[in-house]
């Protein structure tokens, strides 16, 4: 008469258990589906009927009501096919009621096969929490196996799901997740020359500072940016799972052992693709995929202003709020931004070999376009000149692993502060020790270099990081001097 199977819905990136309740009784063959389903969920009726029949079971010719509880969470996609089918079979008495003691998720094919669906990782988390086994199609099972303590059972057909749930057969172990690709692996040792930019990258990594790279085309800005995840400290287990959850919410599996993610959205991407959104249930965007990692904005000048405005607040707060018809969700986006831009429209201002062909008026326009509140988010700016012909053939620099060691030591030195150096408030900075000579240099810089209040704080944050890299307790004059050279213009 009645059966309930547990499945999962995502609210933001957080999995939330959904009880799929099925009641069979009386009346004619009518199939009702209630509990805020979207179109794809409503189509489940047809798939479930066909899959049940093709798997050799009888489909009840009575009044059938399926409720997805809690009703106020919107449900999307085809992932509820499998739990609905299991519920229908149990409620109609076709199989023993024991099949419902699982967490299940998967789309059904008409012939009874089970296909992957979004939410595998969430199912793993819910199953681990509930202490039940979870039945998942191959792709989703791989994702769920990332969750420690989750009892993952891979199923390929509805009939197999029934036998696995009843413990009649030994489950097949799930396959491993294919490594997520953030682009080609790069190592700092491949970077030739660029001593100043390398140092800036190291400081940015140690303090988590947002970094702006300015240089002509072909100088190696993108290469440097791609090296950043490789010198950041590896993610902790909790952070790694958080990243995997964010990726899973976007329908992408991500392996546990992956380092900090690196995302490089194109400047033609829509706001929804970058900050998250989409019709129906909101899906995380690039910003959330870069959570705990690096968001790289190449050709910053090409990004439309509304996109940069949309990035500003989330990057500051570490959370992005997305509201869609009836739902408002919050995605995490604790990212370190790296942006690259040409120094002028033609890209060759200040180049050693190629003359710049821009008019001063054109350069002024370009500078104005790039300035403003968004650029204020960058603590650091560094020029990346094109290499001299001889340098390309020259020796590479230090490898990422060595730099990563120093960055980790600096982070250890900074442990115990309320936040990463990037997010230290003025009050935090005031309470950190600073030598008089360092303050004196900052004060004369305020006068001579027209440093603003915000510029003053930024220089102090970066100086703190330089001191951390040296393992110094208090900020010295030389730290401030270096930080001032790495400051962002304006």
């Amino acid at each position: 008469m009645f059966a309930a199977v547990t499945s999962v819905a995502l609210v933001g990136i957080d999995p939330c258990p959904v009880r799929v309740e099925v009641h069979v009784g009386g009346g004619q063959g009518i199939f009702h589906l209630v509990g805020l389903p979207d179109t794809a969920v409503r189509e489940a009726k047809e798939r479930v009927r066909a899959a049940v029949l093709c798997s050799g079971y009888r489909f009840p010719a009575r009044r059938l009501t399926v409720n997805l509880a809690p009703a106020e969470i919107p449900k999307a996609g085809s992932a509820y096919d499998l739990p609905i089918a299991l519920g229908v079979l149990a409620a109609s008495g076709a199989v023993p009621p024991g099949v419902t003691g699982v967490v299940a998720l998967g789309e059904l094919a008409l012939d009874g096969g089970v296909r992957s669906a979004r939410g595998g990782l969430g199912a793993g988390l819910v199953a681990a929490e509930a202490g039940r086994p979870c039945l998942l199609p191959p792709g989703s099972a791989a994702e769920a196996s990332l969750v420690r303590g989750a009892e993952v059972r891979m199923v390929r057909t509805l009939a197999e799901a029934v036998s696995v749930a009843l413990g009649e057969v030994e489950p097949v172990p799930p396959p491993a997740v294919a490594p997520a690709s953030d682009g080609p692996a790069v190592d700092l040792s491949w970077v030739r020359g660029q001593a100043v930019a390398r140092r800036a990258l190291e400081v940015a990594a140690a303090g988590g500072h947002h970094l702006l790279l300015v240089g002509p085309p072909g100088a190696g800005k993108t290469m440097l940016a791609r090296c950043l995840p490789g010198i950041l400290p590896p993610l902790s287990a909790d952070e790694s799972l958080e990243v995997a959850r964010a990726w899973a919410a976007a329908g992408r599996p991500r392996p546990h052992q992956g380092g900090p993610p690196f995302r490089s959205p194109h400047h033609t991407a829509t706001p929804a693709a970058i900050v998250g959104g989409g019709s129906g249930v909101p899906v995380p965007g690039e910003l959330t995929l870069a959570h705990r990692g690096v968001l790289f904005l190449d050709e910053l000048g090409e990004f439309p202003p509304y996109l940069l405005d949309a990035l500003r607040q989330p990057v500051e707060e570490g959370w992005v709020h997305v509201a869609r018809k009836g739902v408002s969700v919050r995605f995490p986006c604790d990212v370190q931004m790296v942006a690259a831009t040409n120094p002028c429209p033609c890209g060759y201002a200040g180049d050693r070999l190629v003359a710049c062909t821009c008019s001063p008026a054109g350069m002024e326009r370009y500078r104005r376009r790039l300035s403003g509140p968004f650029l204020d988010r960058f603590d650091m700016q560094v020029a990346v000149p094109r290499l001299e012909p001889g340098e390309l053939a020259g020796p590479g620099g230090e490898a990422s692993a060595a730099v990563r060691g120093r960055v980790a030591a600096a982070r250890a030195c900074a442990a115990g502060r309320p936040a990463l150096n990037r997010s230290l408030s003025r009050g935090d900075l005031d309470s950190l020790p600073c030598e008089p000579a360092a303050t004196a240099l900052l004060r004369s810089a305020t006068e001579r270099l027209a440093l603003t209040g915000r510029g003053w704080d930024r220089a102090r944050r970066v100086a703190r990081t330089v001191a951390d890299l040296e393992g110094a307790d208090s900020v010295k004059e030389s730290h401030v001097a270096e930080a001032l050279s790495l400051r962002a213009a304006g």
Partner: protein
Amino acid sequence: MSEDDRLRLAFCGLHPDRTARLVADMGSASTVLAAIAAGRVKVPPEARRAAALAAGACRDRLARLKVAPLFRHGAGYPAHLGDLPGAPDVLLARGSLPARPGVAIVGTRRCTRYGLALARAYGRACGGAGWPVVSGLARGADAQAHRGVVDAGGVGVAVMGCGPDVVYPPEHRALLGDLLARGGAVVTEYPPGTRPEPWRFPPRNRIIAGLAAAVVVVEAAETGGALITAGAALEQGRHVFAVPGDVERETSRGCNLLIRDGATPVLDPEDLVASLSLLLGPPPKVPPPPSTVEVEESARALLAALPAAGAPIEDAAAATGMSAREALAVLSRLEVAGLVRREGGLVLPGR
């Protein structure tokens, strides 16, 4: 021909060539004004309205703007300009216009960094040598030449293609203030309120050349204001210097053509000062502004390694054998001391 009528005619703001032709045809400024008033000479409506202004009103307006009218062959009007055919009958000047001829430094508005750095270096050298530096306050090379004079604390003269109360381009207002504060002058032949229209600039260039004993063309394309100035200088019998540039660069072609046609090539600021000494007499030896800032040994080495046109920090660090960290720290100290500045990805000597 009374000064009042000459001033009233200047306030009409007609094209200088037209004013000169009208005066030549009709005999005097008074008869031209009468002809304009009677409608016998067709002029734009604003010129007709200006012609009806009383001389007192014109003088009041100039006094309010702290602008002095200088009459050709009169007191304060530089003789080396007034003696030239086609010189403006009335000059309007703010600040104090030097009586002796100076050096004109001109170049294209679409200057490359090469030209910008050179213009500034030459402006600094000539200003430091004590000669007045004349230029047009335009974007690009002109403004850099003026900045160089300001750096050296010398006297700069800006000749404008608009009214004495109009600053064009507007972003050079502060520079203009710096010039005036250091005893320089702003000169124009156009009445107050005149907008900077394109046709007003070529006649302005004859004044730039006329106020100078020599014209230095820093960077110029084959056509443009800088070559008009050089042409005017040749007509007026001024000496023309040109800075050679890349033969394939469009904005150096004008300079290279001038050299081919007999202009003196200039290789560096010392070379220019030496050549000019022969024309203008030896520089009056103004001591350079003493560097009061004490900097460490390594900073001095880094400073010495910087070319005038600037270099990336990497290059300066490599030239001195410093690490990137040291170079970054030293650079900040130099910048705070006012000995270098950053522009784009380059570090340049000077403020």
